[in-house]
């Protein structure tokens, strides 16, 4: 089944340096479309760096040097001539800490469509509602759309941030430890949401929590010291790891 899946990202020989220290070492992988890929590994192993390469968020960091190639749907992601705005519109991102803008719920979600030129009020209303519905938040907040988003609980804020990403109609949603700042109930809600979203979206999620990777992902990539040690179907990687380092990590011997 997996081999027939359409590929979203095709990464070949990806090296990345922050100044003199190498954060990614010759990473090669194909990330399938419309499924959940989990990136696991100890802190500082390069998994977040890898994730942030996919939508060029590493551009914001000074002194970064990247070699190798990342293709997304035929687009050369790393090329200086690539339209980063368009790339980020297609490849959205949810962050570790919920980061709602200090404005109303409505304006938070309408923000993306507005910066991409949607002005029509009725259409914005539609987008706001449907994005909140898809992020499983609408029923909880439908009466307070015009109140500040900062009044929401942490879990609601994170779902709002997911809704905000969905509002720009991306194809991919990158998630950088999206539940690490949340309580177990909010975490469960977001995991359930991932199961829904993977039908329509390609999801790449960085997580510290191996149970979470086991629960939500179809494929898992294990990073160690900047190297992609093992990348396989999640069940395979957890129950029958090919590399000793993977086994040591998932059995909790380090990290």
């Amino acid at each position: 089944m997996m081999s027939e899946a359409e590929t979203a990202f095709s990464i070949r020989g990806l090296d990345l340096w922050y100044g003199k220290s190498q954060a990614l070492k010759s990473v090669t992988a194909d990330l399938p479309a419309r499924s959940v890929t989990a990136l696991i590994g100890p802190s500082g192993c390069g998994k977040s760096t890898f994730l942030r390469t996919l939508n060029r968020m590493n551009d914001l960091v000074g002194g970064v040097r990247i070699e190798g190639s990342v293709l997304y749907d035929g687009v050369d992601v790393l090329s200086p001539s690539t339209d980063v705005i368009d790339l980020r519109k297609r490849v959205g991102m949810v962050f570790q800490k919920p980061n709602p803008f200090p404005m109303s719920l409505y304006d938070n979600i309408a923000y993306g469509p507005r910066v991409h030129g949607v002005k029509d009020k009725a259409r914005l209303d539609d987008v706001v509602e449907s994005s909140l519905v898809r992020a499983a938040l609408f029923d909880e907040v439908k009466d307070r759309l015009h109140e500040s988003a900062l009044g929401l609980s942490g879990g609601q804020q994170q779902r709002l941030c997911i809704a905000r990403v969905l509002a720009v109609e991306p194809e991919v949603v990158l998630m950088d430890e999206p539940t690490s700042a949340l309580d177990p109930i909010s975490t469960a809600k977001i995991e359930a949401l991932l199961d829904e979203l993977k039908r329509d979206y390609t999801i790449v999620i960085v997580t510290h929590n191996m149970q979470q990777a086991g629960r939500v992902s179809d494929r898992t990539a294990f990073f160690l010291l900047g190297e992609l040690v093992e990348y396989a179907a999640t069940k395979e990687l957890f129950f029958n790891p090919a590399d000793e380092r993977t086994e040591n990590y998932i059995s909790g011997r380090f990290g």
Partner: protein
Amino acid sequence: MFGSASLSVLAVLLITVFMFRSGLPLFKVVSVADFLFTTRWEPTAADPGYGILSFIVGSFLVTGLALAIAVPTGMAVGVFLAELSDDRSSRTIRSAVELLAGIPSVVYGLFGIAVITPASRALFGGSGYGALSAAAILAIMTLPTIITVTDSSLRALPRELKEGSLALGATHWQTIYKVLVPAARSGIIAGVILGMGRAIGETLAVLMVGGNAPIMPKGLNGMVRTLTMNIITDMSYATGDHLTSLFATGMVLFAFILGLNLIARLALKKSMTGVGGGAGA
């Protein structure tokens, strides 16, 4: 520590008490309304007039004009420092701005006489001494406050806010004016109000270029006397009720500054409690 803190509180109280004790007796001679809302300032006439409305208007005219120049310019420089320039040029510009804040006001006044009044004369005619020239000087003097506050409010914002906007495909520029500046708004407003306080209280530099005619200013380029100029001009020779009226002028100025500080404090308090002000989620 506690001793010095108490001492500064005591100093404020003493100044307040002293100011009111020396100024209030004026209202036995002239009504509060006549003092604040009439324009006849003839304290040495046989039938003395103590109306300071022209000077209140003068103070606000000069300050308003100064802010109209300094707020957009200062915010632009602040945004440039925090978001657009590289670290090295930012550091250089920041030290230049700090230097600007440390220049004595008499030097600003000299600069005004040497450069601004001739420029104003060439551009708008008249003597060159008037509200516009005073406002230009005040604008330069207020700039450091507005630049510094805009710069630091923006830099205090959590990085996630900026990344969140960019990750949605917004441009850097859209991120700045739709997310970052609004999120830093309360801090910036507080800075503007503090700058306004400084502008209203400034004396020497405006005295040197403002013209100092004790009349209602005739237009933006007209000669102007502010509350501070009124006190300093007459102080050297005033006696009796005239002297009291200068203390009363000081009371009015004091009340304005106090009011502005309260507003600034409220705005800052709001920016501390809101997530956008840098407190995080």
